[in-house]
C-alpha cells in the first residue's frame, strides 16, 4: 500500500535522489527545504513517515524532533534522521529526543530505503 513520506532536506540534490528512491519503492513523496516548511507541512498533513535532516535552515532537526514528540498526533510518527555529522553525541541526543532510526551521510541507497520500510512496518530501533 502506498505510504506518504515527507523528506526534510535542504540539499536539493540529495532530496531529489531520495525522492527518486522512495518513489521507486512505491511511496508518495513530498519535500521540505527548511525546518519551518517541514513543520508547516507536517501539521497540515501528517505523513506516514518522516526523513529528517539534522542541519536544516531556520529550525534544526533536533528542534523539529522535539516538537513532534511533544504533540499527541505526531508522538508515534516514524522518523529517520540523516546527518552529515555522525558524531556519537548527535546520535545520543537524537535518541534521547525519540528518533526511531539514524543514518549517516554519505549513505547507501538501500540502507535508507530499507530503514524507511522497516519503520513503516512498525520496527523501531535496531
Amino acid at each position, binding site marked *: 500500500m502506498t505510504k506518504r513520506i515527507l523528506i526534510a532536506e535542504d*540539499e536539493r*540534490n*540529495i532530496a*531529489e*535522489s*531520495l525522492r*527518486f*528512491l522512495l518513489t*521507486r519503492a512505491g511511496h508518495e513523496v513530498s519535500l521540505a527545504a527548511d*525546518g519551518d516548511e517541514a513543520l508547516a507541512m507536517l501539521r497540515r498533513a501528517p505523513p506516514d513517515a518522516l526523513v529528517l535532516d539534522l*542541519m536544516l*535552515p*531556520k*529550525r*534544526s532537526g*533536533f*528542534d523539529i524532533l*522535539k516538537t513532534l514528540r511533544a504533540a499527541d498526533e505526531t508522538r508515534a510518527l516514524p522518523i529517520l534522521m540523516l546527518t*552529515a*555529522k555522525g*558524531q*556519537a*553525541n*548527535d546520535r*545520543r*541526543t537524537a535518541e*534521547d*529526543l525519540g528518533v526511531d532510526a539514524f543514518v549517516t*551521510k*554519505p*549513505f*547507501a*541507497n538501500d540502507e535508507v530505503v530499507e530503514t524507511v520500510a522497516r519503520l513503516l512496518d512498525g520496527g523501531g530501533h535496531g
Partner: protein
Amino acid sequence: MASLPIGHRIRARRRDLGITQTALAGTLGISVSYVNLIEHDKRSIGGALLNRVAEALDLEPGALDGVQERRILDELAEIAAGSAGEAARPRPESARDLLARHEPWARALLSLHRAGIRDQGTIAALSNRLNQDPVLDASVNDMLASATAIRSVADILADAPDMDGVQRARFDAILQEEATRLSDVAQTLARAFEGGQTDVSGLTAPEEVDDFLYRRSNHFPALEAFAERLALDTDIAALAERLEARHGIALRRTADADAPRAPDPRTRTLFLPESATPATLRFEMARRIVALEGTDAVAAEIGNAPELASPAGRERATRALTAYGAAAIALPYAPFHEAAEALRYDIDALAVRFGASAEQLCHRFTTLRRTGAEGVPFAMLRANAAGYLTKRFPLPRLPMPRHGGACPLWVVYAAMQTPDLRMARIAEFPNGERFFMLARATRPPASAYGQTRPAHALMLACEIVHADRLVYSDGLDLSATGRADPVGPTCLLCPRAACTHRQEASIRIGTS
C-alpha cells in the same frame, strides 16, 4: 618615581645641531659638568630648566617630557617579567640604564618583542583554525553533502539501466553540479591552508590534556567504578579517619592559605588552610585518597592515550584524573545524576544536598556521560576578571577558544558586572545554532583583612534542545523564534561584519 632617562635625547639632539656641551652650558647659564651629568641621566631636570633646554635645542616643549621613554620602559618591564627563569630575569631598574646608554638596542629589543607577540598571535590563530575553524567545519559538511549526492545518484544510475532519458539527463546534471561543487570546496580548503607550512603541531601540555578530556567526553568509567567500589562515607570526619587509619596521614589545619596540597612526606601530615570550606576539605581529602589508592584506575584511563604525547601532558592528565576521581567519590555518579535530573540541575539545591561548591557541581555536570544514564551535555568555562579563559570544556558544536578570550557578548563576561547573580541567556551563533548559557561570577571568600580577591566567572552552556531540563530556563522562550543574543565564537572566527563589539579582525570576513 624614578626620573625618566631623557639625557640621551638631549645629547643626540645637541650633536645633531653641532652644538658643543660648552656652548649649550653657556646658553643655559649652567656649568659644563652639569650639562654632562644631565646628558648621562645623573641629574634629573624639570620645570623652567627643562623648558630652557628644549628651547635651546629647538625642540617642542613636550619633546622632553619623557612620555616616549615611559612607554619604552613599560614595555621593557613587560619583557623582563615574561622572560624565562627567575635567575636570568633582568632587574627592572636595569631597563632604565639600557635605554639611557643604548637606546638603539632598547628599541631593537622592543621590535623583536612585538614581532614575537605578533607571531604568537599567528600561531594561536592557526591553531584555533585547525581545531575549530568554521571554514573547515562548513567545508567538511559541504564535502559530505556532495559525496552523499554523488554516491546516491551514481548508484541509482548504475541500478536503473532502463531509466527514461529525461530523468537520466537530470541525474547526469546533478553529478556534474556536485562534482563542480566538490572541486570548489577543495579549492576553498586549499586557500584556507595557504602558507600552511607553519608548524603548529607544538601543542602545549594543557592543550594535550584538553584534547584528551574532550575526546573522551570528559567521562572516565574506570574512575567511576573505582569510586563506586570504595563507596566511601563522604563525611569529613570519615574521610579523615580513612586517611589516618589506612595511610597514617594526619590532617592539620593551618593559617597558611597557600599551604601545599600534598602531605609532607616527613611528618605524614596533610596541611589544609583554616579558610578552606567544608566542600574544599572533602574534595582535598578525596583527592588524596585517589592519589594513594586509585593509581591503577588513573593509569588505566591514561593508558596509551595518543593525545598525551609529552611527559608534561601525562603528568597534567594524571592530576586532572585524580581530581576527577575525587569528584566521583564526593558526588557518586548514580545518586548525583538522579538528584541533578530530579532537581533540574538547580546548583543551589544540589549544593545543599551534597555539600559541594558550585564549581565542583558544574564540573561534575560535564562528566555525566555514562551510557544509559546521561545528564545534559554541558560545556563549561571559567573566565578571570581580565577576560582570560582559565578553564574550558567545549561541546562538539560549541567551540571554545584556547587562547585569550571568547566573544565579549557571552554571558560569562556580563556576569562579572554583577557578582553572585546567576544570569541565564539564549545565545544565537552566526550559523543560527542556539545555546542556553548560564553564568555567575564569584569572589573567593576572605580569610584575612586586605586580601586581593579578584572575581572569576563560571559558565555552563548546553544546546537549546536540552534547556527545558534546567530550572534556570523557566520563563524563557526556548522556541526557535524566541529572543536570543546574537553572539559569535571569538572575534577572530566571527563573520558578523557589523558587530560593534569587535576587538580584532576576523579571518572569516573578506576571505571567502
